[in-house]
């Protein structure tokens, strides 16, 4: 490894990519626009260093590292190794730049919904995942175009803000005021606008068209008011709902707009309502106040112009961020004095991680960047006051521009439903055509008689026969046409428009139950389950792929200091199982110092504590001392001291303690500082000039000479401090990959001191390897003394760099390189990112359910693998395929080799299978390899027919064949890194990756950028019809969450960005199991049945009308009264479907959780598929014939009148569809009873009421009918005969072809011993 080192250190200055990357003077680390390319390149280097086992060029070679004198497996020969070492900072880094054309990046960008900001050439990605593994975990890494300054100056239309001159600012340009309006309507615009919005729905247009048709005199099938009823009903209901929501928005807007802030007016800050604030005004914010608009910071209470803000409301991150006022403006006296200046900034946009502007102030022109503005919605913290000038106000603020809803998704089932609705439209068209044609033929046949036909009477005879004036007759062609239109009106409910409204209500109810589920409540974060999208509940029952983030999703993202390697010796904190609270261990030794109470308690290694408290000054003691001093000092954590009373159990009395809460951008740093504090090195105070550390009770004031923040190129940070004894030290901590190269050089076999340090280094490296294989996150800590000369040179350069206006960060990086070299290794830290509760179990269940879990993480490979192992994603018997390519060709070869080795079928073959599967329309998808004993799960549901079983068995044979050729039954695990993905996610390699990845049981992607996560989701989504679910907690998961069919956000440590973009949000990963297996299953079953039932319910009614129309000389007469026709789908039958859609459940949650394989019903689309649709339609046809013909035959040759017949049909069809529903209900609760039988009763009640109004022709009908036994016998006969085939079919199916769900149901109900069911199914899941 040392062979690479001189190369690196010598090339560092020369090849620093500064020339290529002028980055804005930002304190947030920034790097090039090709961030993932560049970072992946360097990450590859790390991979090599950290001893990964890779396949490179197909032949893994184990070589012995000369220096380390330790056998490590490196994937390539030494030549390749050196090649790999170079790219870190220099050659390949630039090479990638050239190799990776902009278009590719743009393509990558377009995956997500992240802004592609096409202002000239600048665009950005928010929150790449690279920072994750590093110190600045949640730091947003952003980057700007190379032509930052140029791009801006060439901006055609800058926004000009005259500081403290709002009149001039607003005179020229029409900037919005600070009043916000989230409400949609005002009282005047409500009606037209709401109607306009409502009629955007096709359903309502359909309603409207039908109602309009009915208003035409020749077509007036229904009464005019009656036909408007359904439309008015939904319009009014929706309008009331919208109106209420809008009223609430109005109220909150008003509250927001009337808040007050201090605004500079004629030299004084006076209170002013938020809505009155205008761009250009100077506003003063005090501590804990909310910022009213987007402002450029001019000055703060801090002499250095630092302001801390909390951006919780904006991006959800709870930590504090630092913002800076420009040095030029900080000294200005705002009150009393006059300030003026001009800010040129970009037009408002929604990108919260970028701001491009410059400011002319006192004759200077200074650039402004994102670190200089504070945004609306954020809160000022830890800073007494801050003054800023308003640049964007009201609707133009970034917060408002970002508040648009995420795009709505449509569920898969709904897509299928729309396909079937097309079929129903075809039926509708055919029926109307039959009626129209029949009408035409009938008119043609009777054309000679029409004039006098008693029931037609075409002409008036008023003034004798000579007057041939016709009555409502428009010629044969028109009559046919009108007949067609009027039959559309009669048959309108064939298209189940009400279904869309029903489904919305049902999903609302389902969401209510998901939210209320006590077992999806996370007590640690006090968060319930959240349904943010109401459209895709049923998709949860069909998920095939789960894409999971690692940090914060599988793990808690609560960093805990676990282990330390100090001076080559390993110290480990006792794990939680032997829980010793801090006080117990430490109280005996340092009761008197126990003043600092941390919010989190850390277990300490007693040996290490003993070492630290020893007074003798040995080498070990010194190393440990410096080690912890570095941890305490070398960071950007801000200690927040709060006084509070606390009762200590030791003193058994109340005394005042100062509690310290550490605020920082990186949870890792917080963990390290907390750890240092536990070992007695408590960081108490941090200002820009000094740091105060409490070392075992003594206050140590360290002068902070300079600080090089973490950036992702250096991957380390350093501080230069002067000790009270005037010694100057540089303390560095960073990633192991970046640290070992800059350690002091030691020649092997030199003097004994060197030998010791070599040993230490090897020991540390061993420890690091051990740590990372345990899934711990590692950092290396080093320090060195600075000589006066070095200090002087550095100070000089540092001053220059930190005040330079251009390329500041590059210059700073160069400066850092001056001192970050020849360091003494102090040790290494290991931080544990603890696995969340129940993650392995949840993953195991998901896998048994046939769901593939892919983990996409920004972590490095070893960490990812070890986490994979600990959460049982990876098992020891798995064959790992590791793809780490650094070029397209290499990736291609690696993929091809892996495919050849494991006998994976090429894409075409699989596609063929897929196509055939599609033809059978069952879309049977293979079950993952975990069912090793029987690879294919048979669709036992007889409904699906024999063909499908055949198709499935073909697939299984082919799979077996493929397996045989491919030699192995071993499950495969694919591990691929982001670097390779850059090359693979091109079009020509994507299919290869898809083949490989889908054949693997587990896919683990490490070091992936956010957009690559989305790319992986897209890889599956675009190639299969399988449902994908993405789950994540951070902003870097947003693109993935939005790309997937279902996005789930974890409300975790990293804020709410992911939650805001998600469809569902919850507190813990383990709830995913319950969400999918229980609620997903239920929702899918419910909605699937609901859709089929609604199709049936409407079609049976329409068909009944259709048969009757054939008996009325095709004249579109309806025997039913107008009101009954309208009420049928609105009142008579709607409630039970909704109740059943919300409440019915086939299996208890216990059974479902115990047998995850029951989830396969959703994969096999057992509840809703094309076959079921056609079977339902055939059943519908039968039932409608029964409905029509039984009364017809019963009342043949009788004196029954049309309204009695209509009444009989109405009640029959209502009874029939409700009994039909009752037959399928699986769980009867009181509400179900009320809804089902209540509907029938309500129908009778309605008919009694309607028949009691003398103005209607059907007056008194029901009373007459009810007296005759024939009436009741007819209804009974209809119900039984209509349902007999269905019942028989159901019985046969359940007897001979029971489905899994049915068997589980029987076991659950009859045996009441659900465990018996579990004896077998679990055996093959290891």
């Amino acid at each position, binding site marked *: 490894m040392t062979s690479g080192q001189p190369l690196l250190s010598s090339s560092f200055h020369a090849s620093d990519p500064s020339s290529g990357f002028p980055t804005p003077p930002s304190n947030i680390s920034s790097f090039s626009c090709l961030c993932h390319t560049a970072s992946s390149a360097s990450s590859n280097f790390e991979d090599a260093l950290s001893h990964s086992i890779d396949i490179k060029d197909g032949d893994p070679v184990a070589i012995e590292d000369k220096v380390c004198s330790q056998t490590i497996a490196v994937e390539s020969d030494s030549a390749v190794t050196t090649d790999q070492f170079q790219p870190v900072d220099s050659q390949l880094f630039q090479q990638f730049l050239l190799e990776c054309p902009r278009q590719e990046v743009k393509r990558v960008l377009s995956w997500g919904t992240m802004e592609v900001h096409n202002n000239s050439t600048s665009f950005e990605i928010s929150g790449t995942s690279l920072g994750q593994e590093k110190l600045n975990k949640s730091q947003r890494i952003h980057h700007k175009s190379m032509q930052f300054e140029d791009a801006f100056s060439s901006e055609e239309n800058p926004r000009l803000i005259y500081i403290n001159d709002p009149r001039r600012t607003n005179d020229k340009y029409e900037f919005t005021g600070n009043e916000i309006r989230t409400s949609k309507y005002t009282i005047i615009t409500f009606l037209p606008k709401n109607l306009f919005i409502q009629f955007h729905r096709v359903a309502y247009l359909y309603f409207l068209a039908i109602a309009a048709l009915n208003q035409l005199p020749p077509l007036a099938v229904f009464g005019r008011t009656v036909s408007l009823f359904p439309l008015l009903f939904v319009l009014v209901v929706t309008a009331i709902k919208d109106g209420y929501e809008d009223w609430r928005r109005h109220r909150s807007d008003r509250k927001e707009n009337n808040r007050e802030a201090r605004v500079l007016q004629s030299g004084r800050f006076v209170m002013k309502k938020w809505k009155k604030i205008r761009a250009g005004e100077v506003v003063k914010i005090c501590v804990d106040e909310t910022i009213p608009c987007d402002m450029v910071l001019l000055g703060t209470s801090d002499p250095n112009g630092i302001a801390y803000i909390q951006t919780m409301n904006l991006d959800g991150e709870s930590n504090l961020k630092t913002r800076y006022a420009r040095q030029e403006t900080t000294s200005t006296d705002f009150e009393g004095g006059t300030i003026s200046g001009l800010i040129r900034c970009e037009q408002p946009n929604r990108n919260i991680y970028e701001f491009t502007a410059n400011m002319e102030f006192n004759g200077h022109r200074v650039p402004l960047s994102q670190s200089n503005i504070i945004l609306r919605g954020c809160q000022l913290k830890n800073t007494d006051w801050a003054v800023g000038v308003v640049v964007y106000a009201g609707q133009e603020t970034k917060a408002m521009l970002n508040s648009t809803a995420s795009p709505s998704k449509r569920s898969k089932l709904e897509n299928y439903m729309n396909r079937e609705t097309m079929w129903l439209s075809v039926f509708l068209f055919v029926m109307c055509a039959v009626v129209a044609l029949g009408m035409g033929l009938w008119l043609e046949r009777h054309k000679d008689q029409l004039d006098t036909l*008693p*029931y*037609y*009477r075409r*002409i008036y*005879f*008023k003034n*004798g026969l000579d007057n041939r004036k016709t*009555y409502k007759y428009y010629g044969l062609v028109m009559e046919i046409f009108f007949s067609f239109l009027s039959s559309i009106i009669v048959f309108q409910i064939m298209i189940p428009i009400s279904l869309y409204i029903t489904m919305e209500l049902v999903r609302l109810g389902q969401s209510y139950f998901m939210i209320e*589920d*006590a*077992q999806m*409540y996370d*007590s640690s974060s*006090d968060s319930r389950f959240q349904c943010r999208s109401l459209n895709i509940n049923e998709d949860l029952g069909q998920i095939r792929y789960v894409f999971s983030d690692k940090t914060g999703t599988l793990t808690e993202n609560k960093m805990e200091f676990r282990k330390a390697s100090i001076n080559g010796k390993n110290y480990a904190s006792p794990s939680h199982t032997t829980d010793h609270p801090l006080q117990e261990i430490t109280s005996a030794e340092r009761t008197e110092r126990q003043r600092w109470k941390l919010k989190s308690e850390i277990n300490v290694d007693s040996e290490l504590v003993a070492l630290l408290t020893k007074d003798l000054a040995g080498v070990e003691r010194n190393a440990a001392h410096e080690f912890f001093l570095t941890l305490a000092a070398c960071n950007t954590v801000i200690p927040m001291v709060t006084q509070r009373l606390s009762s200590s159990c030791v003193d058994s009395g109340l005394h005042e303690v100062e509690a310290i809460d550490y605020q920082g951008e990186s949870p890792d740093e917080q963990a390290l500082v907390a750890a240092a504090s536990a070992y007695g090195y408590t960081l108490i105070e941090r200002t820009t000039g000094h740091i105060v550390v409490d070392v075992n009770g003594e206050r140590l004031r360290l002068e902070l000479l300079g600080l090089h923040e973490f950036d992702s190129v250096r991957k380390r940070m350093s501080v230069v401090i002067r000790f009270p004894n005037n010694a100057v030290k540089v303390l560095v901590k960073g990633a192991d990959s970046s640290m070992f190269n800059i350690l002091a050089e030691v020649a092997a076999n030199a003097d004994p001191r060197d030998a010791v340090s070599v040993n230490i280094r090897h020991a540390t490296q061993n420890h690091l390897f051990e740590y990372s294989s345990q899934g711990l996150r590692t950092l290396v800590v080093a320090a060195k003394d600075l000589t006066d000369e070095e200090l002087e040179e550095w100070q000089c350069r540092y001053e220059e760099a930190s005040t330079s206006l251009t390329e500041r960060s590059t210059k700073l990086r160069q400066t850092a390189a001056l001192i970050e070299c020849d360091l003494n290794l102090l040790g290494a830290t290991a931080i544990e990112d603890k696995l969340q509760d129940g993650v392995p179990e949840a993953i195991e269940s998901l896998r048994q359910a046939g769901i593939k879990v892919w983990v996409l993480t920004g972590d490095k490979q070893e960490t990812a693998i070890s986490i994979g192992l600990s959460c049982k994603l990876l098992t020891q018997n798995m064959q790992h395929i590791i793809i780490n390519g650094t070029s397209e060709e290499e990736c291609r070869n690696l993929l091809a080799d892996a495919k050849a080795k494991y006998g994976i079928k090429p894409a075409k073959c699989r596609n063929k299978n897929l196509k055939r599967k599609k033809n059978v329309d069952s879309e049977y998808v293979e079950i993952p390899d975990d*069912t090793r004993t029987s690879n*294919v*799960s048979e669709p*036992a549901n007889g409904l699906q027919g024999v063909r499908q*079983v055949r198709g499935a*068995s073909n697939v299984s044979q082919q799979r077996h064949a493929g397996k045989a050729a491919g030699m192995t039954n071993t499950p495969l695990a694919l591990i691929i890194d982001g670097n390779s993905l850059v090359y693979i996610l091109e079009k020509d390699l994507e299919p290869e990756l898809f083949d490989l990845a889908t054949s693997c049981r587990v896919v683990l992607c490490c070091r992936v950028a956010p957009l690559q996560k989305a790319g992986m989701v897209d890889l599956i989504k675009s190639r299969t019809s399988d449902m994908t679910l993405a789950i994540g907690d951070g902003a870097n998961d947003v693109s993935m969450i939005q790309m997937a069919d279902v996005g789930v956000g974890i409300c975790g440590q990293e804020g709410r960005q992911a939650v805001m973009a998600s469809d569902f949000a919850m507190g813990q990963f383990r709830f995913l199991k319950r969400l999918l297996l229980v609620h997903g299953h239920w929702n899918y079953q419910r909605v699937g049945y609901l859709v089929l039932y609604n199709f049936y319910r409407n079609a049976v009614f329409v068909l009944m009308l259709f048969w009757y129309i054939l*008996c*009325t000389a095709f*004249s579109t*007469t309806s025997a039913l009264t107008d009101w009954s026709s309208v009420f049928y789908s609105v009142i008579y039958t709607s409630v039970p479907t909704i109740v059943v859609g919300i409440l019915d459940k086939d299996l*208890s949650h216990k059974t479902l959780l115990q047998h995850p*394989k029951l989830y*396969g019903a959703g994969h096999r689309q057992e509840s809703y598929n094309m076959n079921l649709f056609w079977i339902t339609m055939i059943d519908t046809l039968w039932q409608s014939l029964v409905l029509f013909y039984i009364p017809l*035959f019963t*009342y043949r*040759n009788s*004196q029954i*009148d*049309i309204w009695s017949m209509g009444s009989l049909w109405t009640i029959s069809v209502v009874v029939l569809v409700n009994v039909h529903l009752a037959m399928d209900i699986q*769980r*009867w*609760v*009181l509400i179900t009873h009320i809804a089902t039988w209540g509907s029938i009763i309500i129908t009778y009640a309605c008919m009694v009421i309607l028949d009691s109004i*003398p*103005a209607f022709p059907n*007056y*008194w009908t029901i009373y*007459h009918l009810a007296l005759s*036994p*024939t009436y009741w*016998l007819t209804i009974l006969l209809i119900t*039984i*005969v209509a349902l*007999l085939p269905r019942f028989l079919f159901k019985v046969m199916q359940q007897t*001979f072809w*029971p489905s*899994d769900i049915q*068997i*589980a*149901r*029987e*076991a659950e*109900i*009859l045996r009441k011993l659900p465990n018996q069911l579990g004896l077998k199914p679990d055996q*093959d899941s290891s």
Partner: protein
Amino acid sequence: MNLKATAASSTSDGTSDSSAPRRNSKKPKYSRFTQQELPACKPILTPGWVISTFAVVGIIFIPIGLASLFASQRVVEIVDRYDIDCIPETLRNDKLAFIQSRETNKTCTRSLTVPMDMKSPIYVYYELDNFYQNHRRYVKSRNDKQLQSKKNENETSSCDPEANASNGLPIVPCGLIAWSLFNDTYRFSLSSKVLEVNKKNIAWKSDQGHKFGDDVYPKNFQSGGLIGGAKLNASKPLSEQEDLIVWMRTAALPTFRKLWGKIEVDLEANEQITVVIQNNYNTYSFGGKKKLVLSTTSWIGGKNDFLGVAYLTVGGLCLFLAISFILLYFARPRPLGDPSFLSWNSDPAGHMN
């Protein structure tokens, strides 16, 4: 079906993590409703339920079928089609001319034999065929407001083309339905003794009482260029025009009967009834048949075997199914809830046969 009220599973797992109750906690409150654990009965199709369902349906249906078939068999019905026979043979080539001519004698005598004893009341119906009283144009061609009350006399909307007479005054009752009122008449005599036909109470009481006003008198009726059917006695209010009321309850199907009157004496088998028919109504223009029906009645209504046969068939089928399922469950029992039938447990090949 197996009805078992399973007691909702207890709450132990749901409340375990609530050890630290917080103020303002968002934790969902436990209730059986929100946790979807309400006591419920969960029916499943066990063999017992299947068999007994079929058996019960069979057992209920067969007696009903027998009863209705028996009732229907007991109804005595005399049907006589007279539309052709009542035209003198010489004029049968041009029936339309015969029926439309004012000169022709439309009286016609028919002789009917009573097949069996008929208990009073014997209902007299006329049956029309191929007459689409359910045609949309026809059904709508009436005005219920006008029929109801004198003050609505001018309400003739939707009555066209029989809304107003040629002098422009409204026709009462307006519309095609009233206009086409059936106007054949029958006189019955039994061995030269006149059989009284009671023409009262043939319409629904509710119609007489509320739909047809007792202050509404026919006006301008059948005064147009084309006479559609019967004329009404202008001195009788509509509520007493029972033939009209019966007629205006439009039939559901193109073949229909309407009550004409009741004979309130018993008839004995093989008695000869002579019917003198005034064959006025023109069904010849659309080829409709006219029949005279004399029928007794039973609890099931008129003579119609359909209901009885249907009930017997369905009942028999269900009994047959019940027996078949008993045999089936003996021959090929499938233990309910047997995990070996689960798809992931059974041999894939096992399902092929």
